């Protein structure tokens, strides 16, 4: 934790240093604002004292002009100070957001380990925002300190005893309020956390409304929601009661404090040691000072939140990669020979396999976990415990992951599509100027385009949400084919595609990848029948290899794996 918070402090330091001009400007201008705010009640006192008590038109005009100047000063100070502070906050958050995004997308990966996407997005948005907000908190904090000091100077100039009373009393008052409210605050936070749950449950039920309808479970869902909603309501009422109590408490404390200041001030005026104006100013300042003091308390809370967020950001930025090392580039153009030498990792054991350049190989792995492990090793999402994988004679561990993936593409079963047009998705990974149509034809994406409003130029929605599962698979396959890598490894590309289309795709892949090394990790008989050779991996090692039809005829394990 110590190291973590040190790294977190580094994140904050960089966030502040990167915006130091705005932070300094914001602090100075904010200080102007605070001084102005402190001066307003003092000036009200002076007007009463110099112009009203013994009516004097000249003095009134003079002091109203001074008041106008002070107003201009505080208004512009506030406006430009807050703008600088907000800009510093937003810019710092923007930079941090991109830092997090770059780290997540870095070729050696690893940032996602143990963090679901939602949590990482939270780090990139909320945590980045909180660390950025430290800049704003700093400017406001500096300004508030200046405000308190200005109030103190003004008070002490008017009257030392009255000044001391307010200066000591105001923080004591704040502390007392804070101390009395603390148990309430804790309770309220816990309550609110529980209450936030209700809106989440509602959104969740609505998101699953089709499933509920299919299940005819609307009534059960409504009953459940009602219970959650009621619990949330009760929690919120309790939280609101605590907050109301806190508000009432502060009102009573502040009011009593003002009464005390008025009493002491009144006696001082009567004893002749201060003027009437000083009393009015003191009352006004007693009302003003809790403002900047509570800003300071708020700044403290913001800084604490910023530190916690910074530690999380630092954690992500420093996450260890999935693999380390490797800087070599594969030969260009890569002939595309893939060789597994005694590969052992997780469930895989002494797996030997050679895929010849240009070969179309079917790979049937009986255990889905083994298939996943194998794909991870090929994409260098992990380095094998034993043995090696070689591309054109170079072990993958010596290759830079990004460079490797320029030559070898592992198109995973659950590969994701991205918001944009159908065509943009198909050509996303393709070399510039590639004609997308052969790939689209091979993956039967032309049929998908026909159903999409706008055809190939129609948008497919976030993660391709306006397409069906089978349509998404086809677009993902077309993207992999259009990428035109020296080696293409495709995992189960047609599980949600109907049989007729699957047969068309089997022929399409063969056509689109003629002369290019292609490995189909699948148990679809239609796809396997279109390969040159099929390797059966059972129990983590090679169990048989032959053309599909021979294996179907001769190998019972294969028959079970493929045809049932």
């Amino acid at each position: 934790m110590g190291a973590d918070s040190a790294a977190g402090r580094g994140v904050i330091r960089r966030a502040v240093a990167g915006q130091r001009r705005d932070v300094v400007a914001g602090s100075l201008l904010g200080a102007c604002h605070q001084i102005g705010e402190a001066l307003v009640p003092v000036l009200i006192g002076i007007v009463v004292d110099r112009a009203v008590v013994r009516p004097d038109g000249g003095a009134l005009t003079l002091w109203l002009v001074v008041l106008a100047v002070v107003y201009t000063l505080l208004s512009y100070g506030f406006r430009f100070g807050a703008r600088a502070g907000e800009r510093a906050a937003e810019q710092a958050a923007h930079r941090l957001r991109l830092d997090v995004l770059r780290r997540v997308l870095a070729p050696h990966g690893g940032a996602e380990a143990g963090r679901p996407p939602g949590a990482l997005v939270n780090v990139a948005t909320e945590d980045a925002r909180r660390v950025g907000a430290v800049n704003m908190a700093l400017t406001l904090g500096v300004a508030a300190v200046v405000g308190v000091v200005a109030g103190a100077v003004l008070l002490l100039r008017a009257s030392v005893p009255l000044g001391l009373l307010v200066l000591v009393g105001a923080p004591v008052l704040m502390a007392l309020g804070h101390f009395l409210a603390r148990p309430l605050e804790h309770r309220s936070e816990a309550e609110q956390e529980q209450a936030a749950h209700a809106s989440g449950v509602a959104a969740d039920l609505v998101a699953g409304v089709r499933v509920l309808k299919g299940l005819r479970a609307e009534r059960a869902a409504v009953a459940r929601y009602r219970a959650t909603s009621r619990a949330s309501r009760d929690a919120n009422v309790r939280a609101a009661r605590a907050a109301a109590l806190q508000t009432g408490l502060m009102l009573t404390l502040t009011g009593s404090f003002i009464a005390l200041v008025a009493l002491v001030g009144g006696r001082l005026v009567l004893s002749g040691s201060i003027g009437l104006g000083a009393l009015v100013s003191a009352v006004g300042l007693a009302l003003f000072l809790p403002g900047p003091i509570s800003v300071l308390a708020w700044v403290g809370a913001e800084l604490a939140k910023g530190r916690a967020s910074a530690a999380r950001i630092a954690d992500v930025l420093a996450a260890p990669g999935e693999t380390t090392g490797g800087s070599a580039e594969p030969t260009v153009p890569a002939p595309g020979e893939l060789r597994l030498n005694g590969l052992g990792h997780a469930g895989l054991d002494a797996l030997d396999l050679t895929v010849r350049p240009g070969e179309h190989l079917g790979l049937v792995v009986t255990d889905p976990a083994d298939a996943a492990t194998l794909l991870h090793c090929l994409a260098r999402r992990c380095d094998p415990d034993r043995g090696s994988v070689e591309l054109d004679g170079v072990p993958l561990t010596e290759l830079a992951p990004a460079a490797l993936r320029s030559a070898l593409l592992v198109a995973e079963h659950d590969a994701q599509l991205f918001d944009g047009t159908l065509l943009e998705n198909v050509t996303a990974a393709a070399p510039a100027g590639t004609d997308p149509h052969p790939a689209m034809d091979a993956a039967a994406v032309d049929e998908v385009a026909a159903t999409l409003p706008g055809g190939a130029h129609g948008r497919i929605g976030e993660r391709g949400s306006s397409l069906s599962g089978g349509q998404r698979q086809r677009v993902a396959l077309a993207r992999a084919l259009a990428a035109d890598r020296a080696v293409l490894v495709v995992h189960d590309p047609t599980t949600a595609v109907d049989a007729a289309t699957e047969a068309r795709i089997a022929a399409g892949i063969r056509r689109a990848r003629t002369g290019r090394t292609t490995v189909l990790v699948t148990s679809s008989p239609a796809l396997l029948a279109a390969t040159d050779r099929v390797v059966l991996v059972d129990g983590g090692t090679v169990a048989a290899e032959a053309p599909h039809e021979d294996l179907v005829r001769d190998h019972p394990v294969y028959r079970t794996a493929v045809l049932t």
Partner: protein
Amino acid sequence: MTTPPHTADEGAELLPVATAARTRAALRTLVRPDRGLALTGIGVLVAATVIGLLVQPLLGRIVDVVADGRPAGDLTLPVVLLIAVAAVQGVTTTLGLTRVARLGETVLARLREQFVERALNLPADRLERAGSGDLTARVTGDVARVTEAVRSALPEMARSVLAIGLTLGALALLDVRFLLAALLAVPVQLLTARWYVRRAVTLYADQRVANGAQQQQLLETIGGAVTVRGHRLEERHTERGADRSRKAVDLTMRSVNLVLGFYGRLHIAEYIGLAAVLIAGFWLVRDGAVSIGTATAAALYFHSLFGPVNAALVLLDDAQSAAAGLARLVGVTDLAEQPEPKPGKPEAAGRPEPGRLEPAGKPEPGRREPDGEPLPGEPEPAGKATPGKAAPASVPRQRVASPEAAVSVHAVSHAYGPGRPVLHEVSLTLAPGEHVALVGASGAGKSTLARIVAGVQQPTAGTVTGPTAGTVTAPAGPGGPSVVLVTQEVHVFTGTLADDLRLARPDATDDDLRAALATVDALDWAAALPDGLATVVGEGGHRLDAARAQQLALARLVLADPALAVLDEATAEAGSAGARALERSAGAALTGRTALVVAHRLTQAVAADRVVVLEAGRVVESGPHEMLRDADGPYAALWRAWSGSRAAPHP
């Protein structure tokens, strides 16, 4: 997570938004049961504010005592009164705020419960027409905005408005000329408020959109990081992220500038009012109309208005966007109360309305009412299912459960809109206990037929008899549903695994749940979860992969225990090896039920009692797997294509 295959939002027919008058009426109805709470809450807050207004005159009194040079003992009474005021103000404010909060929370709970209830009971085709995005946006965005307004803006606004009104009244009590002086600030404030709200509402809406877009883009990119890295799309996606982030930052800065400009203008108003009140004090004191203390109290009153005025004005845009959100929520809660309008959708003449046996009798021009005659060219269903013995023909449009058929659709046609026909006069009968596999290319109408058989979708024309009849919108009654539809759309409900399962049968015991999980081969992994059945799953909880989520859906099916189950590509989301396991689970879940299974893997067809082949919305073949495989029809061609070889041995 997944969104079903309905295309694009262009054609989406959004859910209605209530008018302002209707929203107000709905709000009154929502508040009515708690009128007493509302009145006492406001009353106590008014009392608190009035009491608080005694502070300035009391301070003025002190000033007068001092200015007149009276004895120090005269200070005691106003000071004691100040303390008493502070105490009473504290207590009444606490009470008032608590009551207002309780009122707000109660009304809010009532509103969101009504909303969720209506939303979940919307007819499925209405949901499809609206698209899921609209409803989701309302349940997240609009509910949050209204909640936020009720929770923070409402009490603040109530106190501020009371403080402003009563303070102005108090100024008038001191001397009406103080009020007139103070009102000089109002024109500037009103103009400022109008200037601000006009810009703020659209700007903040844009900002929310930009933040949402950024969030979605990050979620998409980060969620798909493996794909991004694997396809070397890192740079493009970093650029996209930077672009969205920059847009959000720009909009935030624009709204910051707006708020700062707003405060700048309010400072002008403050100065005008304060100067005017001071000048009024100067004149009034000079003319002997008021005391110095009164003039001081007036100035302090005005100074104390700064906070409430700024708060009330800056909350105006919150209030406005909350009102807009409320109108969108009321639009949905009102839906079920009025007859559902069906704009632009061809209405089938004679389509049986729930609860009505006679045809509606309003034939539309250009549409021929399909009647119960057997259709030419339609192949007779083969296999052990005896076609419905002309039951639909003899009693057309009547919902008569035939003892011979678990479910029967007759001459059903469906179109999702004019010119978008999906099914053409399809007839299909399932005998009790029969398992029928529905096969065909994408777009052949399999899912639509499945939804109609499941009673989730009303066909444009034709009749449905059996347990699903009349169930289009009806949720399960006591005793559980008679038909359940499971699609490839998986959704794991947030909460414990047990809660998720109990949606299907709320009174199920833990043993029932375990038994259901065991039936679909899911008990092993479920028991191995960190907290077993009590493990929190779904969004934010333990993540289940697609295959497990689908097993969960099948376990729910087992718990719901319907006589008829419809599975629509319920095994498609898993990889091929996972699909096999899922098919086993599905087979177990369907044991003892009548089942219609939309099959994408032909192994499901092999296992079925009968295979029905759908092509372009028509049944083209029907019979057991072996028979169709050996015939020279479309199924045989499909089988050859799927098994990948003419030489493939018969399993």
